[in-house]
């Protein structure tokens, strides 16, 4: 087929380990679906044939944190739930990324009250915030693309001295 058919002998190419690891890593992001409330419905919709998150290699929603590297926090995080979210996040192997999906998760949203955490960045390092209540599935895919960009830019030294990643805000456009 194509390129292979043109080869006469054994083909090879030269690259950097870093580049090929990043290439593989960013095209096989396994999400941990932390679906806590209504945003989770849109997250599920992003996996259906119409939006098809599989196009980005992220269709493998793992329900165990040990196999995931992206946590999609979709829903209202209450103070009581925050400990659970944090515990699951801690169980994910490094390197890992977090998407704060929806107004509630990013800022508390319409729940400006005593029981809801006003933004999960108070206890989790968030990489991408997704605006909307709920965000449309394409907006979530956009966030995933941002995460992929970010993964593409990681360097080994980023993991040697783990610090809070830079924040990235997406407008709903």
């Amino acid at each position, binding site marked *: 087929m194509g390129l292979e058919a043109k080869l006469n002998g054994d083909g090879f190419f030269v690259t950097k380990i870093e580049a090929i690891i990043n290439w593989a890593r960013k095209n096989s992001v396994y999400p941990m679906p932390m679906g806590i409330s209504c945003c989770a419905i849109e997250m599920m919709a992003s996996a259906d044939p119409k939006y098809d998150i599989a196009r980005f290699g992220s269709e493998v929603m793992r329900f165990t944190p040990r196999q995931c590297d992206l946590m999609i926090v979709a829903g209202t995080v209450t*103070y*009581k739930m*925050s*400990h659970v979210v*944090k*515990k699951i996040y801690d169980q994910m192997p490094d390197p890992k990324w977090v998407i704060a999906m929806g107004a509630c998760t990013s800022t508390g949203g319409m729940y*400006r*009250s*005593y*029981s809801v*955490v006003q933004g999960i960045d*108070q*206890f*989790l*390092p968030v990489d991408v915030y997704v605006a909307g209540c709920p965000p449309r599935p394409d907006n979530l895919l956009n966030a995933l693309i941002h995460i992929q960009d970010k993964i593409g830019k990681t360097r080994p030294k980023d993991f040697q001295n783990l610090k809070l990643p830079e924040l990235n805000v997406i407008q709903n456009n």
Partner: protein
Amino acid sequence: MELKELIQQKLKDNFTEASFEFSEFRNELSVKLNKKYILQVCKFLKENSDLEFLLCEDITAVDWATRKNRFTVVYHIFSIKNNFRLVLKSDVDESESIIDSVSSVWKTSDWQERECYDMYGIRFNNHPDLRRIYMPEEFEYHPLRKDFPLMGIPGSLPLPKK
């Protein structure tokens, strides 16, 4: 006899020493009674073969903030047999905010009373397991009281460490 009159009549006949206040709003009957009688009255309403209020839909409370009897505990009960809804109300003072539990009558009221305790701090006598139901157990306040700030008390609910 119409059902509303029947209920009033039966209550008056069976609890002669209790003083009931009946009122009607939007065609719904509500009964105000002294908290001493709440358990007996509930038992009676459930077990009387003409009334059969088998379903306890909700138990909640109202915080009047400045009134003498600060809280009113409200029971919404429903008779499947008559397709009739009745509201029971009972005043509770802040100094002894305690009322008899009706969980021996309706099993569902167990959790409803726990919610009421969690949100208003009203305690229920003889409740099988009176713990908080929504808020963490070590939480010290009662969020639906009028003197509780909407945004909560800073530091009262711990967050995980970053």
